[in-house]
C-alpha cells in the first residue's frame, strides 16, 4: 500500500509538470501561495469579497461564497505533501529576479541552482540532499525513485532566510558532468532536492526534470567536431542536373554502415561561388551524423535556375545513393528528413525551391514538400519578392553578417534585404545576425567584401565558427528533436555561448514562434493598425513619443529617422510585403501599456513573455545612448498586483546597431531586432502573489528607474510563449 501511494503521488507530479511554480492553484485554497491554507488566505479572500482576482478559487470571475466553501474545505492543508516539479537550474543574477532559470549549459561550465522559499515547499534552516541524476522520463521516475548522483555523491544544501537571493547553490563538480550524448550534442540530467534525505524521490521532495524534459542539458560545443570521422567524396556527377552544373561533393560519417538512415543536408552556393567552398560546413555536419552534399548551382541567370539545380541535385542524390561513393550510403538517406542550406543567391534559391514545391509547380520524383524539414539561407538575396521567394511555414533559420559588402542591407536596394525572407516565414524561425562578418566569410574563398568599422572584422574563422555552431543547433533541434538546443536561439551570448565562438563576437538573435498552440499573441501589428489598439483587440495606452505603426520598411535610402520616415532603418519588408511593426522613442519616464483581453489573460500554461525589439539606427536618442538599451516589463493581474522585471534579467541589453557607415550620414547600419524572453516565473519571485490566471495588462516602461534614460525602439511580436 505504501508503494502504491508513492506511485500515485509521483504520477501526480508527472502529470502536473511545471505547473506548481506558476501559480498557487496547485494547492487548492492557498490564496497567497505559501503552501498552507490558513487565516491569511481567508483575510485576502474577504478583502476581495464581491470582487474578482485573488480569492477567486473556482475561477468563475467572482469572489463569493463558493470560494469561501472551497477554502474552508481545505482549511489547514499543508501542500508540500507531494513532490514538486519546479525549476532549479539557473544562471545566477546579481539583482532581482536573482536567477534566470534555464536548461542548457555548456559542458565544463558551472551550474547553479536556486530555490525560492516563497514559492517552494521548503523549510528555511533545514538541510536537504541535492542530487544530479541521469535524466529519466516521467514513466521512469514513477518506476524508479531511487536517487543516484551522476557526480558520485549528493550535495548537502541548507536553506537560508533571505529569499531566493540567499538560496543559490553552485552545483559541485558540475563542470565534470558529461555532455557526451553520442550523436546528440548533449546529455540530460534531472535535479532533485531530497528534502527528507531518504535517498528516494518521494513526497515533499523537489525535482527539476520529473517530466520528460530533462532538468538540465549539458551540451558539448555545437561548433566543435562531432563524434564521427568523415569521409569526403571530392565530386560525383548528378544525373539529371542542368548541363554544366552536374557536379557535387559528398560528406558522410565514415561509420555510416553502422548507423541507421540519416538526414540529408543539401548546400547550394552563391553566385560566383563554388560547390567546393563549403568543406568546413559539410565535414562539420557529417561529423555529427548527417549525409551532406554541396552542388554546383546555376546562379548566373538568377534565382529560378538556382532553385532548379537544388531541386535536381536533391532528387539525384536520393536516386543515386546506391552507386555514389561505391555504394557507401546506399539505403542510408532518410528521405523524410531533408535540410537545405543556401548561400547568397543560393540562399534565396532554396526558399524559391521550397516555394515551387509548395505551389506544386515543380514535382520531384523522390521527395516532396513535407520532406523538407528546415531551410537555412545564409546572407540570401531577395530578387523575387513575396510571391515567389516565400518560405511559408517551413522551419527557417537566417544567418547573416552585418559587414556584408554584397547582400549588404543597403537601404536603396531591397534585393539586399535578407530579413525580408525571414519576415515572410509563418512557421518557426530564428535569426543569427553576426557583427563583423562579411558575405564571403561564410565560404572559404570568396572575395573580401568586408564593410564595417575598423577592427570589427571576424574573418572566415570567426564567421564559420558561428555558422557551424548555430546551424548544427538548428539541425539537431528541428530534425532530431534535441529541444534543449533551442536555448541557443534566444539566450544571450553572455549566458550561453558555443565555446568555438569568440566572446567578443556580437550575435543578435531572434526567435519567432507563431503557432497558436505555443503562444498567445498580444500584439503582432498585422491587424488593428491604430496605435491605440492591439492586434488582439485590447487597448494600448502609450506615453512614449513619435509612435508609429507601419510597414517595417526604409523609405528614402538614408537609414535616418525623421518624422516623415519613422521606420527608416528597417529592412524587413519590400513594398509588396506586409510586415508591420511599431516604432517609438523616449527621453524620460514613459511607457506603453496593453490591456489583455479577458480570454487571453490566463497564461498559466505559458512560460515566457517575449518580444522582438531593436534600437532605431541613427536616431538622435540612439546616438546619445551610444550603447545597449534597457527597459522594464510589468505584468498586472485582475486585483491590481503589479510586478516589474528588467529586460536585462536574462543578462543583456538591447544591443547598439552595428556601427557601419554609408548610405546617408552617421554611423549605424540597419535596425537589428533581438528576442527578449522573460520567464513568467520571474514575476513570482519572492512570492509576489501575482495571479497568472488573470493577467489584465502588460506594460513596458522606459526611462527613469525603468531602464535607459533615452532611446528609440522598433518592437514587434509581443506575446506569451511556451518553452
Amino acid at each position: 500500500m505504501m508503494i502504491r501511494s508513492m506511485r500515485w503521488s509521483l504520477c501526480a507530479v508527472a502529470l502536473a509538470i511545471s505547473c506548481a511554480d506558476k501559480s498557487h492553484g496547485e494547492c487548492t485554497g492557498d490564496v497567497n501561495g505559501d503552501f498552507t491554507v490558513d487565516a491569511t488566505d481567508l483575510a485576502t479572500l474577504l478583502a476581495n469579497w464581491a470582487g474578482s482576482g485573488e480569492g477567486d478559487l473556482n475561477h468563475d470571475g467572482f469572489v463569493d461564497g463558493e470560494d469561501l466553501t472551497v477554502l474552508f474545505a481545505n482549511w489547514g492543508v499543508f501542500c508540500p505533501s507531494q513532490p514538486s516539479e519546479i525549476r532549479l537550474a539557473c544562471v545566477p543574477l546579481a539583482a532581482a529576479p536573482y536567477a534566470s532559470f534555464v536548461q542548457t549549459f555548456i559542458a565544463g561550465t558551472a551550474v547553479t541552482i536556486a530555490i525560492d522559499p516563497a514559492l517552494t515547499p521548503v523549510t528555511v534552516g533545514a538541510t536537504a540532499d541535492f542530487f544530479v541524476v541521469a535524466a529519466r522520463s516521467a514513466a521512469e521516475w514513477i518506476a524508479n525513485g531511487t536517487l543516484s548522483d551522476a557526480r558520485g555523491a549528493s550535495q548537502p544544501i541548507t536553506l537560508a532566510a533571505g529569499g531566493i537571493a540567499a538560496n543559490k547553490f553552485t552545483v559541485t563538480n558540475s563542470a565534470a558532468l558529461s555532455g557526451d550524448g553520442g550523436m546528440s550534442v548533449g546529455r540530460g540530467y534531472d535535479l532533485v532536492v531530497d528534502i527528507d534525505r531518504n535517498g528516494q524521490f518521494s513526497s515533499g521532495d523537489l525535482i527539476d526534470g520529473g517530466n520528460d524534459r530533462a532538468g538540465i542539458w549539458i551540451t558539448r560545443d555545437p561548433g566543435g567536431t562531432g563524434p564521427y570521422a568523415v569521409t569526403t567524396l571530392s565530386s560525383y556527377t548528378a544525373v539529371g542536373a542542368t548541363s554544366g552544373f552536374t557536379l557535387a561533393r559528398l560528406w558522410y560519417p565514415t561509420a555510416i554502415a553502422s548507423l541507421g538512415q540519416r538526414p540529408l543536408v543539401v548546400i547550394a552556393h552563391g553566385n560566383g561561388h563554388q560547390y567546393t567552398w563549403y568543406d568546413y560546413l559539410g565535414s562539420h555536419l557529417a561529423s555529427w551524423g548527417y549525409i551532406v552534399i554541396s552542388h554546383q548551382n546555376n546562379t548566373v541567370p538568377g534565382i529560378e535556375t538556382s532553385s532548379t539545380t537544388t531541386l535536381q541535385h536533391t532528387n539525384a542524390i536520393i536516386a543515386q545513393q546506391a552507386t555514389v561513393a561505391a555504394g557507401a550510403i546506399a539505403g542510408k538517406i532518410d528521405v523524410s528528413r531533408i535540410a537545405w542550406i543556401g548561400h547568397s543567391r543560393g540562399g534565396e534559391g532554396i526558399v524559391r525551391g521550397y516555394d515551387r514545391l509548395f505551389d506544386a509547380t515543380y514535382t520531384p520524383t523522390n521527395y516532396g514538400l513535407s520532406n523538407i524539414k528546415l531551410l537555412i539561407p545564409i546572407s540570401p538575396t531577395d530578387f523575387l519578392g513575396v510571391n515567389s521567394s516565400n518560405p511559408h511555414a517551413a522551419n527557417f533559420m537566417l544567418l547573416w553578417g552585418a559587414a556584408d559588402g554584397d547582400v549588404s542591407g543597403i537601404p536603396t536596394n531591397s534585393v539586399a534585404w535578407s530579413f525580408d525572407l525571414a519576415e515572410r516565414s509563418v512557421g518557426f524561425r530564428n535569426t543569427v545576425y553576426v557583427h563583423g562578418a562579411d558575405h564571403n566569410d561564410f565560404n572559404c574563398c570568396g572575395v573580401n567584401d568586408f564593410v564595417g568599422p575598423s577592427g570589427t572584422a571576424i574573418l572566415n574563422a570567426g564567421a564559420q565558427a558561428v555558422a557551424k555552431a548555430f546551424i548544427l543547433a538548428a539541425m539537431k533541434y528541428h530534425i532530431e528533436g534535441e529541444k534543449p538546443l533551442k536555448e541557443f536561439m534566444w539566450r544571450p551570448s553572455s549566458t550561453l555561448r558555443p565555446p568555438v565562438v569568440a566572446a567578443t563576437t556580437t550575435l543578435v538573435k531572434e526567435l519567432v514562434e507563431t503557432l497558436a498552440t505555443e503562444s498567445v499573441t498580444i500584439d503582432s501589428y498585422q491587424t488593428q493598425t491604430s496605435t491605440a489598439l492591439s492586434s488582439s483587440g485590447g487597448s494600448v495606452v502609450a506615453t512614449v513619443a513619435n509612435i508609429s505603426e507601419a510597414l517595417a520598411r526604409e523609405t528614402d535610402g538614408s537609414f535616418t529617422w525623421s518624422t516623415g520616415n519613422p521606420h527608416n532603418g528597417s529592412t524587413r519588408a519590400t513594398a509588396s510585403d506586409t510586415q508591420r511593426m511599431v516604432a517609438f522613442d523616449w527621453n524620460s519616464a514613459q511607457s506603453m501599456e496593453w490591456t489583455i483581453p479577458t480570454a487571453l489573460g490566463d497564461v498559466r500554461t505559458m512560460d515566457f513573455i517575449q518580444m522582438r525589439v531593436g534600437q532605431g539606427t541613427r536616431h538622435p536618442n540612439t546616438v546619445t545612448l551610444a550603447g545597449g538599451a534597457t527597459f522594464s516589463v510589468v505584468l498586472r493581474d485582475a486585483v491590481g498586483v503589479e510586478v516589474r522585471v528588467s529586460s536585462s534579467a536574462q543578462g543583456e541589453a538591447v544591443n547598439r546597431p552595428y556601427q557601419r557607415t554609408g548610405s546617408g550620414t552617421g554611423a549605424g547600419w540597419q535596425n537589428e531586432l533581438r528576442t527578449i524572453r522573460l520567464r513568467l516565473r520571474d514575476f513570482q519571485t519572492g512570492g509576489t502573489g501575482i495571479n497568472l490566471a488573470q493577467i489584465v495588462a502588460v506594460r513596458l516602461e522606459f526611462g527613469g528607474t525603468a531602464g535607459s534614460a533615452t532611446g528609440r525602439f522598433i518592437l514587434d511580436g509581443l506575446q506569451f510563449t511556451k518553452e
Partner: protein
Amino acid sequence: MVISLSAVVLSLSLGVTSQSGVKGDAPVAPVAPVAPATPAVPVLPALPALPAVASTPAPLTIISIRPVAIAQSYPTDFRKEHPQVSAGWLVVIRADSALLAPRALAEPLLLASGSDWVESVEWFNHGFNHGFNQGFTSGHRVCFIPAPAGKDGFPSRSLTGLRMWFGSAQLPESVDAAILDRERADADVAKIAPLTAQQSQELTVAKGQDPLRAANRDELVAAIQALIAVWSPAEVPEAAPAAK
C-alpha cells in the same frame, strides 16, 4: 571609337596571335582544360577586394568570335522566354573588372546586337564547372551569343553591325524582348559602337578559327571550358582556403 581595333587579338583555335601587342590581351599562360572530376587542390592567389559597381551602359573589347552549330538544341536560361538555342557565336571579351566581378546582387547584363537583332548573352566564368571567381581579375570573360540556326546549322543572323556591351543590372532570367529593346535604345544613347565589317571578319572564321559543330550543350560547355583555361586560367582550378 569605343571598341579599339588595336586591342583586338585573334584567337586561332587555342593558339593566339596578338596583333596589337597590348599587354593583357594575350592569354596569361595556356593550360590544358581540367577534367571535371576530383581536381587537385590549387594554391589560391591573393584575394582581391570586391570592386565598386561600374556604371552602364559600358563598352567592352571583343577578342575572338567563333560560330557554333548545336545539333541538339537547349533552352537558354538567359531569357525569360527560355527559347531553344541551336546556334550562336562563342565569344571571348575583355572588360573592366568592375563589370566582370561576380556579385550576389544583380550584375550588368551582357548584351549583343546586330543590324536587325538584339540578344541576351550567356556567360560562363561564374562558378561554372571548376571556374574560380577570382578569375575576373584576368579581365576576360567567355560567353555565347545565342542565335537561330540557318540551313548549315550555323547562325542565320549576320554579324554586320555587331556590338556588345554591358547593360543595366538585372537577372538574365528576367530578360524579355521588351527589356532587350530598352537596353538597345540605351546603348544607342550611350553611343556603343559596332564593329566594322572588317573587324568582324578578322575576329571570326575568316582569320582561321574553325567553326564549331557541337552535338549538344555538353560539347559547347567543353569548348567553353577550354577557352576559360586559356583566357582566365585562375578560374580553372578548384579553390583552396586562404586567409584574407
